[in-house]
Every structure is written in structure tokens, then in C-alpha cells.
């Protein structure tokens, strides 16, 4: 599965995207973020305040409670500031 990061989430993790294999028991966005935080301090820094992180599955906004299911691409990013 492809993970893609933007803005300061991307900067803190130090990469724009990566392929990962989801471990057993990671079924939702919330569980995905909790799992990523175990992968090192750059991830801890990016997801220090998980409640502000926004997520999209295959280009659609989703809540943290959303099931990942057969997602192809999951994006994690800060609140948007366009316009």
C-alpha cells in the first residue's frame, strides 16, 4: 500500500511517499497513525498531535475511524490552507 505525505508531515517524516505492508490489527486510519508512530522519532514528530492530521483514501477525505479496506493510496497531511 502506498502512503503519501504533505506539507509539514512530509517534512518531519523526511519523505514524500513510501510503500508499506500493513501489519495485522491495523484496520483504520487511527490505527495506521498509531502504527506509524512506532516507526521512529521522525514519525513521532509528524504525528505528535494525531487529532490535527487529516487523511484521504484514494483521493477522498475520510475520518480517522474509516476502515482502510482495499485502499490503494492513503494520504496523511495537516489541515489545508489553500485558496
Amino acid at each position, binding site marked *: 500500500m502506498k502512503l503519501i505525505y504533505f*506539507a509539514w508531515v512530509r517534512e518531519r517524516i523526511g519523505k514524500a511517499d513510501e510503500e508499506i505492508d500493513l501489519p495485522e490489527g491495523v484496520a483504520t486510519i487511527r490505527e495506521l497513525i498509531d502504527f506509524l508512530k512506532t516507526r521512529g522519532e521522525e514519525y513521532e514528530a509528524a504525528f505528535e498531535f494525531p487529532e490535527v492530521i487529516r487523511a*484521504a483514501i484514494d483521493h477522498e477525505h475520510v475520518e480517522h475511524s474509516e476502515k482502510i479496506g482495499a485502499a490503494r493510496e492513503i*494520504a496523511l*497531511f495537516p*489541515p*489545508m*490552507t*489553500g485558496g
Partner: protein
Amino acid sequence: MPAAPLIEIRVQAGDFDVSAEIDALTKGRADIGGVASFIGLCRDEGGALSALELEHYPGMAERAIRAIAEEAVARFALSAILAVHRYGKIAPGGNIVLVAAAAGHRHAAFEGAEFLMDYLKTEAPFWKKEHMADGTSGDWVSAKDADDSARDRWKGRS
């Protein structure tokens, strides 16, 4: 029979020409009474900024704006709607975004354009990073509660 609503959404690095964009919205039609538009520009924040850098999520950005535009067309019975959002480095005074809404009457056009801007700011995947005039790397612009409030005032309204 009125023509089907025109929905034109673009995400691009280059600048846009306001007259040309609006002409394209109304071209060949004589049932449009008004076009309301908004141009968002890069401010220098009192001279502190040398540029804003706009990051976006390719693919999702256009898709998210299109979904908002389609809701605006349905909600305000618009004849046409346009959004052009730039990405990359933009100097103070430069254009960031153009939205325009065309309708039979002016109030629907104004509401359509403001609705699109309010949702675009909070729902479309763009992020702004500041580049400082003194050469230092600036911060990522924080999302504003005021922008969430601006979006939320449309909820529950018919």
C-alpha cells in the same frame, strides 16, 4: 432549454487571465445576468514575506474542488462555475486562485462564488509555506478557525 451548467476546474503552476477565463464562462450564452468572481492574491505581510509556496496533492486537488463546485452549481442553480488554483512559488501581489460563478441573477452568483471559496480553503488539499524576505525559511501557514467558521455557516442553510 438552458444549456447544461459548465464546470471548469484547473490546478496549474502558471498564471491565469481573468478576462479570458470569465469570457469562456459566458461565451455564446445570453441567459447569464451576472458573474461573481474572486481572486486570491499573495500578501507580503507587511514586507516580511518574499513568497508563498503552494504545495498540493495532484489528482485529489482537482477532484476535491470539482466536488465543491458541483455542490455549488446544484445549490445555487448556477449556469457556470470556474476555479483555477495555482501551485508552486508565488511572489507578493501574484495570483493564487480565481473562482467565478455565473447565474441568471446576481445574488446566486455571489453566493456561489463565496461558497466555493469557503469550502475550497478548508477542503481542497493545498498547503502554503512562507518564504521570508530576510532569506530564512518560514513556517507553514496554520489553518484558521475563521475559515472553518466561514465554511460552517453554509451548513443547515437551504
